[in-house]
């Protein structure tokens, strides 16, 4: 391990700062829900896109720095990240499309 004796403390606190700021922004937006972002956007609202992108940014910070993926061998990193990312995108895409189809089929049958 090349990093064996040097300390990463400073970097760790910096990443913690970034993760905290992202969480604060998310919670703030989640509470005030600005109308312009809340009710429109492509596919889902802009607000949801912001949440999803910020979440992925947080996940990147945790996996790269805290779980130390950045220090692993390139192909080890790839067999972890590519496997998960590909399968998850595949699964989520199919299931969300199916859910929307179910809604379109069922909602005309519900009387409010």
């Amino acid at each position: 391990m090349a990093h064996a004796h040097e300390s990463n403390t400073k970097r760790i606190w910096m990443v913690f700062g970034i993760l905290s700021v992202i969480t604060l922004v998310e919670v703030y937006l989640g509470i005030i829900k600005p109308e312009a972002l809340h009710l429109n956007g492509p596919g889902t609202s802009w607000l949801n896109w912001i949440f999803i992108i910020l979440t992925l940014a947080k996940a990147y910070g945790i996996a790269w720095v805290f779980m130390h993926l950045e220090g692993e061998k390139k192909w080890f990193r790839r067999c972890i990240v590519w496997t998960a990312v590909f399968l998850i995108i595949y699964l989520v895409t199919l299931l969300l499309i199916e859910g929307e189809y179910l809604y379109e089929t069922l909602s005309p049958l519900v009387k409010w």
Partner: protein
Amino acid sequence: MEANIAVPSNSKDTWSGGSAKPFGASYGKMMMWFFIVSDALTFSGFLAAYGLTRFKFIDSWPIADEVFTHVPFVHGEFPMIYVAIMTFILIFSSVTMVLAVDAGHQMKKNKVAWYMFATIIGGIIFVGSQAWEWSTFIKGSYGAVKTTDGKVLQFVKDGKQIALADFVTGERTDERVQHTRKNGLWFEKEETISTYSVDQVVNAYKANPAIQVRTEFMNVDTKKKTILSREDGIAELAKTKMVVEGANLHVNEYGNTIFADFFFFITGFHGFHVLSGIIINIIIFFNVILGTYQRRGHYEMVEKVGLYWHFVDLVWVFVFTFFYLV
């Protein structure tokens, strides 16, 4: 173990995968990563199923920040605040964990021990918070009624939801009391009887013109639940089957029951991960104190439990987004 390994080896490290190190990663670390990948797929399966169900009922899904509005020891409505605090606690315990790993690289035994201790405390606070959140959710905050066609009707006054206790008065009319073992029927039990009877709630509604009924139906363009007129409210209330207080796996005063099912299942599964993480951390913590890793010459074991702990944090980041924010 030797019998299972294709490459003959007489060296002592056979148990840990032999001396071959694919990708330069040790056997234990690699297996921890592969476990994490498979566990990540399990969690994404659950969250994707949540997504499917949510899209299936997109116009009647509960609004999460109306559900989780409580903060311990404080009265009032604070949407999201407590969940945000929980997220901070978990991220912070992730930081102390990675600091423990960092101190391990420098062979500083005491620092590793203290950071691991902080991590364990953070984990316990998180699980405790989750237990508190569960109990608040199970207890409920307003109360509602459920109709024969499975819809949940809530009550509002001036556009704000109010609790049954705020407007229902008088004695219940059906004279039902909870069966207990001591008054007969010792071999039977029954579900908890709600505080108010159906008739009582309907009559209180009729008697108080300020109260309106709110349905689960959400206008997708405005993200607001529909509030019925007084007359429509009476028509809907005529179908009332039961009074609902709180949430469980069968009924949910906040709306769709399946929302509660997913909430209990996914946060429960995550909470169980946190719990096992705490237990593993405690074991490693004692090993650190006993000097096991100091003698071994490296703190890789701390690194491996660290991976698991960060993974628990990673999952929470997604649960937080998809349950409370989106």
